[in-house]
Structures are given as C-alpha cells and as structure tokens.
C-alpha cells in the first residue's frame, strides 16, 4: 500500500497527529479535563465552517478558533464545577454558530462530512508540513510547561503555594490541546477526536503506573491505533475513522480488564 503517494502522506499525517494527541491526551486525562478536549473539537467545527464561508482555509479556522477557545477555558480557572458549566455553554454557543454557518454554506455536504468524520486520505503534502510544524511547536511548548503542569494537575493548592502560576499553566496547556485537537480533526474528524486524544491516554494510565512511561505508552498506543486503522481501511475499504475508533475502543476496554486482573 506504500506504493501510493497519498497513502504515504496519510501515514505520515496520521502518525504526526497521533503522537501529538497521545502525548497531550495523557495530561488531559491526568487533569480530568477530557470534557474540555471534547468541547474544543466541536468549537473547531464552527471555526472550520466559518473559515470556509469567508473563503479561508478550514485548517486555519479550525486552529484559530480552538486556540482562542482553549485559552479562554484555561482562564476560567481551576474550579471544576463552574468550569464545566462554562465550557458546556461555550460548546453549545459554538455549535449553534456552526449550524448557522452550515446554513449559509450550502455548497457541499461532503466538506462537512470530512470535517465531522475526518478525511486522512485527503491530506496533501503542504498540509502535512503544517501539521508537522504545529506538532513540533506544541511538543516543545508542552515540554516547557510539563513539570508545573503535572504538579498543578495532581496537587493544585500545593503547586499554587510553591509559586506555580496556575492560570498561566492552565491556559497554555489548553492552547496546546487546541492545536492537538485541530490536528486530530484532520485525521478522524471533529466528532471523533476523543478516540485519539483520550482513548490511548486513558488506556495507558490503566496499563502503567509511571509518569514518563505512561506518556510514552500513550503516544505509542495512539500511533499504533492510527496506523492500524489506516492499514485496515486500506484492505477492507471501510472508513479509516471507523477502524481507528474500533481499535481505540478495543485497547481501552482491554486496559480496563488488565487493570482489574492486576489488582
């Protein structure tokens, strides 16, 4: 299957997005912020449809919108209950707006389907380069805030007393999540971002007790699921996103069983 140019590009794009999603997702699960990640991807849908409506590239709209929303969510602060309501409100507001954009943007339902469920085979080499650069920048930023991020995630009050700027860390992290979400949406679509961001990360935390090992495992699982999904899609002709969600679900439920057995 590597004889085809589009397959090679698809493997590279899926690999880049999966490694980023698996890594970022680990911290998302650690912080208990999976809902924020889910909401961000839907906000991205609005950004993408809006961008197309105004003649911009969907990827630019996706990244721009999720970035702004991610930083705003981070600034809401640490109190979970208030934060989740605020995030939920932002989510429905964004989806409502997305609906309005779709209403005006009648030209092609296929474009919308690609946004919602992904179209990894449609990624061209210039888009691949963009994905690669964004992923590299995100991973560098994540490495920079990594230590305070873990500290603030596990023990926010102690971290605050030790001088960790909680709001800055929260906002910077969600900005990184926003980029990861936008990348994932290119592969599996905005509706299924959870499958690459949260599935492998949650499974990794069931399989492994370590921090460094957990991050590596999460990235590795995401990569394996993305490439596995592409391969299966190539031979069955079923949608790639379906196969990735199937593998992700399978690995996650296997991890639950493994955890049960281990304890």
């Amino acid at each position: 299957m590597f004889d085809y140019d589009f397959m090679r590009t698809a493997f590279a794009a899926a690999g880049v997005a999966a490694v980023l999603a698996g890594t970022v997702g680990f911290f998302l699960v650690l912080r208990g912020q999976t809902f924020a990640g889910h909401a961000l991807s839907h906000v991205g849908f609005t950004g993408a449809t809006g961008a197309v409506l105004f003649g911009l590239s969907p990827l630019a709209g996706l990244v721009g919108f999720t970035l702004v929303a991610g930083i705003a969510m981070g600034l809401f602060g640490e109190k979970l209950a208030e934060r989740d309501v605020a995030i939920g409100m932002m989510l429905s507001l964004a989806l409502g707006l997305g609906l309005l954009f779709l209403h005006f943007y009648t030209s092609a339902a296929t474009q919308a389907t690609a946004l919602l469920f992904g179209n990894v085979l449609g990624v061209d080499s210039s888009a691949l380069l963009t994905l690669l650069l964004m992923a590299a920048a995100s991973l560098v930023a994540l490495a920079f805030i990594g230590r305070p991020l873990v500290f603030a995630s596990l023990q926010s009050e102690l971290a605050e007393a030790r001088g960790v700027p909680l709001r800055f860390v929260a906002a910077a992290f969600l900005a990184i999540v926003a980029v990861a979400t936008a990348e994932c949406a290119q592969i599996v679509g905005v509706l299924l971002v959870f499958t690459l961001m949260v599935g492998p990360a949650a499974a990794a935390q069931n399989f492994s007790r370590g921090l460094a090992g957990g991050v590596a495992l999460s990235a590795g699982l995401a990569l394996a699921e993305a490439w596995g999904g592409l391969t299966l899609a190539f031979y069955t002709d079923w949608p790639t996103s379906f196969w990735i969600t199937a593998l992700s679900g399978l690995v996650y439920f296997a991890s639950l069983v493994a955890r049960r057995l281990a304890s």
Partner: protein
Amino acid sequence: MSALRFDAVTIRLGGRDILSAASFVIEDGEFIGMLGANGAGKTTLMRAALGLTPVASGAIRVLDRPATRGNAAVGYMPQNRGRAQGQRLTGYDVVASAAIGARFGLVRLDKAMRREIDWALDHVDARALARRSIGELSGGERQRLLLSQALLGRPRLLLLDEPLISLDPAYQKGVVDIARRLRDELNIAILFSAHELNPLVNAIDRVLYLGGGAAVIGPVDEVVTGPVLSRLYGAEIEVVRVKERFFVMAGDVDVEREAHRHEHGHGHGHGHAQDG
C-alpha cells in the same frame, strides 16, 4: 527569630472579616496546635502566611521576612489534597512532581534531587510506601506520604492543614508523633490545624485558638478554659477536663466532636483555588 508573626492582621473575604486585627507570634522550633470551629479561618490563616490570600491591614512576617508566594523556607500540606489521591501513579512520582514541579523547562530529576526526596520520605517513614500506587494507599499511609512533600526544600516552618482528618485514633497518633519528631530532630516550627485538641494535647508546645475573628495563643491550660473559649465562640462554653482529655461543651453538646462529625460528611473540605 520568630517563625511566624501576625501583627494586627485583618483578612477580609467575600465582605466578611475572617480575622480582625489578630496578633500572635510563633517562635522558632515551636509545635503549635491550631484549633477553631469550621470556618473559623484556619485554612485562610495558613494561606495568608503563604502569601496566597492578601491581608486587608496589618503585617505578616514569616521567618522575619514579609510573607511571599513560593517561599521555600515554608513547607505546606493543604487541607484539600487535590487529584493526586485517585491516581494510579506511584507515590514516588507524586512526590517527585512536587519536588521539581515549580520549574519550567526541561528539568531532570537528578541525583541530588533524588537524595532530597529520599531524605524527606525517610523522615516520615514513607520510603516503602512511595513504591506503591498512591490510589492504593490507606488514608493514613497517604497522609504520611503527602506530608513528606512539606519537607522538600528543608523548610524552617511547616504549615499542616488538618492532617488528622478522617484518620482512626491510632493513625492520628502516628501522624502527631511524626510531627513531634520533625520538631525535635529538625528543629522546625510547626503550625498544625485540627478539629480536636485531644490527639495533640501531649505533643504541642502551645495552642492557637481561632474564633470570631480573634486569635489567642498560649499554653493549653491558659487558653482552653471556659472564659477564653466563651469569648472566641461568642457563646457560653464550658471546658471539662478528665485527666489528659479535654471536652469543650456548649450546653450539653461537645463542640469539637460535632465539628469533626460534620467534617466527615464533607469529605475533603472545600477548594481554595482563587477563582473570580
């Protein structure tokens, strides 16, 4: 040198004075038990000493310096222990994340830092516990492990917020013994908040009682008396003493036990993140 000094400190939160012109001094190497009803301001007082809650007037001096955020000379164990306790990570990873968590960039856990972590774990007998998953530890074991984090950076003052909450009497004694040993071996001043005096009474040097915005410090015999506590609680309080045990009664209700029972219902206390 004094470890902690409050000079006529007023702290106002949500339009109410939690402390009004409260003054007291904790000397170096003193073990102080801090008592007071729910909402008396124990946590608020510690957060103010950490530079997290601003004072409306007065001055706080920590080890003869103004209170500032991120002071490595002050060790802290918050009442709200955070998400760490439900995790599958090893205790060691949690403690290590605190040890290097205040620094941005690629920070490696080097030899010196590992030695420091081991030193802190040894002081609370948690070296073996640290190898286990934090979510699998019992409440008392977890408390000890988290307590080790307050020792990182070799502080001169420890602020321990309700370390006895939801522990059995035997475990409570263990934690109090550890605190006393830290005071003796490392000569650290300790401010230890609790709902009940009795587990602490034989270990502490003096007691700091909060109530009605006021703070009274002194030997247990002088502070834990009917007249002083009646003033702090703003109600008629009687102190009944049976050998080494104190019972603080309002009418026929044991005030401290009541407070303790409520705390169990509340689980792990309220959050203190500074939102909006």
